[in-house]
């Protein structure tokens, strides 16, 4: 039972990080029908940006205000990077065959990944201890303050995103653009600004995810984006790509699945089990858990 509860706590933590990153994939996919392969590297970049803001701008302060400032500044920087990325690599390809944009995204991923390496160097960096190391022991189950914070902040962010998408006019514009871009344009929606907005939201959520990865795992490397990006992307697919609650569900599910596999089975086969889960779910439900079954348009 101890292992179960411990892995439940770990799984929820990892899962909320996956979910935050998965939201970036799923929102971009929803509107542009494009897998943004550079998103994982953006997440990695945000951890490095956060590190630099901590050492250079904040003078290594770890007060509550400083930590909030680090999060906000990193999110702002990554939002700008996301918008630039869209302008340079994806906008010119909106009318092109879909796979061209995929290759462009792969190119962008290489640029960001190697950009991180050129700026911060190829060696692993240690992310600062922004949150005090507080642990609680509930009869053998150890939960850290970081875990609680990650889970709580992720939940708040996800609920607010959900409300934003469902209840506001801008959210309605996003939903409309993801159903049918042309019809949305005819209704007077500026699809260009919707796409910009999507990249701002997706990249800043990814940035928060990246900082959480830094806080939780401590060691950050320039090429870690692929790993986390791939997992988050699987999470998005599990939930049904393009579906925002689906990404949250998929992320949590994948986090829990990973944690339980690591706790009960083996960690050397973790990747294999993850993909087997994905393949089985896609064979049973070809559009993911919450994805709608839409006939492909003719």
């Amino acid at each position, binding site marked *: 039972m101890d292992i179960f509860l411990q892995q439940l706590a770990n799984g929820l933590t990892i899962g909320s990080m996956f979910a935050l990153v998965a939201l970036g994939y799923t929102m971009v996919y929803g509107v542009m029908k494009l897998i943004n392969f550079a998103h994982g590297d953006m997440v990695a970049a945000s951890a490095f940006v956060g590190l630099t803001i901590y050492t250079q701008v904040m003078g290594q302060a770890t007060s509550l205000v400083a930590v909030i400032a680090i999060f906000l500044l990193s999110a702002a920087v990554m939002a700008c990077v996301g918008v630039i990325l869209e302008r340079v690599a994806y906008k010119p390809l909106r009318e092109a*065959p879909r*796979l061209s944009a995929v290759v462009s995204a792969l190119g962008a*991923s290489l640029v960001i990944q190697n950009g991180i390496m050129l700026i911060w160097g190829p060696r692993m960096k240690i992310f600062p201890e922004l949150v005090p190391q507080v642990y609680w022991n509930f009869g053998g189950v150890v939960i850290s303050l970081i875990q609680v914070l990650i889970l709580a902040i992720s939940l708040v962010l996800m609920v607010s995103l959900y409300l934003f998408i469902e209840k506001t006019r801008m959210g309605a514009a996003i939903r409309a653009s993801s159903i049918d871009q042309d019809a949305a344009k005819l209704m007077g929606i500026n699809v260009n600004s919707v796409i910009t907005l999507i990249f701002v939201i997706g990249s800043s959520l990814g940035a928060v995810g990246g900082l959480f990865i830094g806080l939780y795992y401590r060691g950050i490397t320039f090429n870690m984006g692929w790993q986390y990006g791939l997992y988050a*992307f699987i999470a998005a*697919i599990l939930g049904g790509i393009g579906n925002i609650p689906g990404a949250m569900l998929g992320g949590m599910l994948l986090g829990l699945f990973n944690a339980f596999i690591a706790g009960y089975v083996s960690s050397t086969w973790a990747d*294999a089990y993850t*993909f087997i889960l994905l393949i089985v779910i896609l*064979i049973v439900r070809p*559009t993911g858990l919450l994805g709608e079954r839409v006939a492909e348009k003719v």
Partner: protein
Amino acid sequence: MKSLERFGYPVFFVVIAILPFLLDPRWQAVAITFLIFAVVALSQDIILGKAGMFNMGQALFFGMGAYLTAILNAKFGWPMLATIPVAILIPALMGILLAGPIVHLRGDYLLVVTIGFNIVFVQVVQNNLGGVTGGPNGIFGLDAMNLFGIKLASQVSVYYFAFAVLLLTLGIMANLEKSKAGRALHYLREDPLAAESIGINTRVYKIFAFGLGAGIAGLAGTVYATQYAAVSPEAFEFIQSVLFFSIVLVGGSSIPGVLLGVFVMFVLPEIFREFATWRFFIFGFAMILAMVLRPRGIWPATFGKIPKFLIKESNHGA
């Protein structure tokens, strides 16, 4: 296009044929890998370009061929030549088996599932399943290939073996384009629904494309194992599949396009090796630029002899 077929191909083949005598050993090795990657990229083109299925796991079949050759040679003492049929048939069969349940998936889902197959494969060989794959170190010390009395001991002889395999693949590709299956795949990619409604069994042809592509990639794997007399898991990581995927799309889904793609995506980075750290940074920009300027690849596919004025510009995939 006509003049290319008349002059371009002979010139290309002559250059390829005399190339090893113009290069030092390091570049000979690059040239062999160029030929092998060209074969894999062409096999990827059958699946991705011709059949239009988003396959990002071609390194799986490539690796499977290489590993089968290595295991049968090093662990079971088969001669290298005898492993060739196995290294073609098992990956082809595997391609058919794996493709069966997934070909109906929507493009991007297929892409992730094929990435998944690739990652599972690498994990299987890394964890030394069954004790025959040699774990993270792989298998080394393979015999030299003995082609009916000719021993492929030198680098130049391996080069010509790879060249022969490339010629064979080009022959298959040329035949495919003129065959019933090739036409079916073409219609399938252009418009699956229309193809289905004129009586093309899309499912069968999609699986056929996977099987054929996988078999050719398996053969390329054998050549790869021959070149290095060794195999190791990192040569077949899924990042390698990303390379083959990009080669086809950057080059364009045609024979000259794919060859050009291999040159641009593999040989050019080798040439710019001195720029070590900046190399892939610039390379990424080049990929974006190539797609922005030529979204259908540097050398796009053409099909059949349809007069130009009948072709309507459309935005279909690849």
